[in-house]
């Protein structure tokens, strides 16, 4: 295990170059460039604000609904888009895997890493929105990057597991978009956790994104931290990271033979 990690550390530049390639290629021929990163959560937020905030009147814990949903969409979009990319990272790079050796885990890692740029651009927009809605700055905002980091770790953990499975079982590829789509509804993006009846809330805690998004909002808008929920989310995140890492390591020996 130590060898594995030290080799990854030695080859960290490849991670950077692969992520750089992904970003470069994604925006090379796009007129709007990185602005695309903002458009998807922006339009989703507008739709949500109209249907769920305005028409359905879903509460938002006292935060303006657009801000409430956009803050969650920032993390959720990164999670769902990047998880799909991480899950497909080995299959889409099969020509590399069969022709050259480098630590395989750098492929999912670079996808997870590249997605952070979009997230960064989107957060600038979130900051602008917060200024527009006169959100008062508070020291807990400094904790927000911690939840961003947790999302990245979660994407990496679940992603390694899915990417390795995807090499062997191609139906993972078809299942993933469907799962992330449904996942939106079992994560408090559209509604606050408090909106649900109490006995559902426990089940929702099993979704690690629940703790992340609730915690992220508490940092930004000053709600009470639900430490039990956050702890549970971290436990699941770290469990997935270890599980994903172990599975990936045992599966990577045959990647080149079956991909």
């Amino acid at each position, binding site marked *: 295990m130590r060898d594995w990690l030290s080799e990854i550390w030695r080859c960290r530049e490849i991670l950077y170059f692969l992520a750089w*390639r992904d970003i470069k290629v994604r925006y090379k021929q796009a007129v709007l460039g990185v602005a695309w990163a903002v458009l998807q959560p922006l339009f989703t937020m507008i739709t949500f604000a109209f249907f769920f905030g305005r028409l359905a009147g879903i509460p938002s814990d006292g935060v303006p609904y657009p801000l409430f949903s956009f803050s969650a969409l920032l993390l959720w979009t990164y999670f769902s888009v990047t998880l799909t990319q991480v899950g497909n990272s080995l299959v889409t790079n099969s020509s590399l895997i069969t022709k050259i*050796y480098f630590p395989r885990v750098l492929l999912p890692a670079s996808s997870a890493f590249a997605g952070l740029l979009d997230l960064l651009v989107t957060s600038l927009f979130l900051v602008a929105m917060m200024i527009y809605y006169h959100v008062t700055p508070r020291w807990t905002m400094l904790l927000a990057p911690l939840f961003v980091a947790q999302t990245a770790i979660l994407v990496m953990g679940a992603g390694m597991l899915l990417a390795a499975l995807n090499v062997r079982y191609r139906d993972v590829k078809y299942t993933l978009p469907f799962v992330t789509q449904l996942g939106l509804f079992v994560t408090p993006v559209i509604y606050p956790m408090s909106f649900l009846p109490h006995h559902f809330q426990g089940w929702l805690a099993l979704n690690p994104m629940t703790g992340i998004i609730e915690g992220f909002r508490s940092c930004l808008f000053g709600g009470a931290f639900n430490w039990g929920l956050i702890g549970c989310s971290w436990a699941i995140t770290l469990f997935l990271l270890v599980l994903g890492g172990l599975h990936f390591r045992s599966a990577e*020996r045959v990647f080149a033979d079956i991909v």
Partner: protein
Amino acid sequence: MTQSISVEQLSKCYELGLAQQETQLRDQLVRLLRNPFHRRRPKDILWALRDVNFSVEEGEVVGIIGRNGAGKSTLLKILSKITYPTSGRVRTRGRVASLLEVGTGFHEELTGRENVYLNGSILGMKKREVDEKFEAIVSFSGVERFVDTPIKRYSSGMRMRLGFSVAAHLEPDVLIVDEVLAVGDAAFQKKCITAMQDMRGGGRTVLFVSHNMAAVENLCTRGIWIANGNVRLDGPTHEVIEAYMASFASADGAVNALTDVEGRRGSGEIRYTRVEFLSKAGEPQTVTRCGKSLVIRLHYLANEVVEHPSFGIRMYTEMGTLITDTSTWLHGLDISRVAAGTGYIDLEIDSLNLLPGRYYFSLWVDSSVASHIYDAMEHAIQLDIEEAPVYGHSRRVDSRFGLVYFPQRWRLDGIGGRLSPAANA
């Protein structure tokens, strides 16, 4: 001397059918539900390598030869850690660079410059190293003018050159090269060979896989012949090559079946089925000697009546140089129609004035009145031409003396005070 590579008891097996049968998680789950206690049945197993042993000293340049499917590529993939052995072990010393493909990881949308960095990094160079060698890489490749152009606008030759150039600047301790010289134009091939020879001078260990026997013979000090997943012969290059070449004659016979040729083109109304090499007397031959006559019999199968076809054949050297191109059209022959069914056409060569070596043939049938190709295949068959005392003398005339010879004589009449011919011998 220290060992650079050591391979002990190396085996690799592939489970056949695994790739097709159980790629759906759904199927796996269904199988588990139906029959939860059933163990997975052993599948068809293919041993790509079995008990391979050899070691390579530092600075040796070893050529690995063998037929397609003999296990060469699997061996290289294991040595370069792309895939893992089923059993046995491999030890390598120092930095290993493997070049199973030129320009691995090149991305169409990125510029030449960006791809040099990406490719270099994937091959194991640090960014600082690429920075230092960037100028040298680009000038070696000869694509300076296009370095900031996306490589989707590059020709395949330019891509090759850039890719090889990155690899040539890796400075690894062990270099593993697979058949990369098979593509690219002759001038660049020569440049690559020179670059690899410089590596040999620099004390690098090189493993070189190729079907180009001339390149193997020129570059390598030692040959390893892999057959059926095993080391068949390991020794001085030319001995191994000779033994390998000799194995073709006995196994393949004089008939070259053309049923599973790769990369075949054409619409298929008429196709070549096999090729026979015959002597004038009609005896089959697998090898022929310089200066002998030869009949090339091209068997075909016409699926329907074909009008005005032209049968053609092109002959190449092992390095891919075109020697001659001939066809019935070129001879002004008009074949008004070919009936459906099988048949053959003979090309008679009175004197095959080629020097020893291996030659390849490309075949085609097209229409002599329209631009339409019925069948075409490149380098589909080969013919070995062996030494013969072509100048009526016992001196060896081999491939070092060129490609062709002409019936000829030296006249010594003009030399004053002639010596007797005996002193000359």
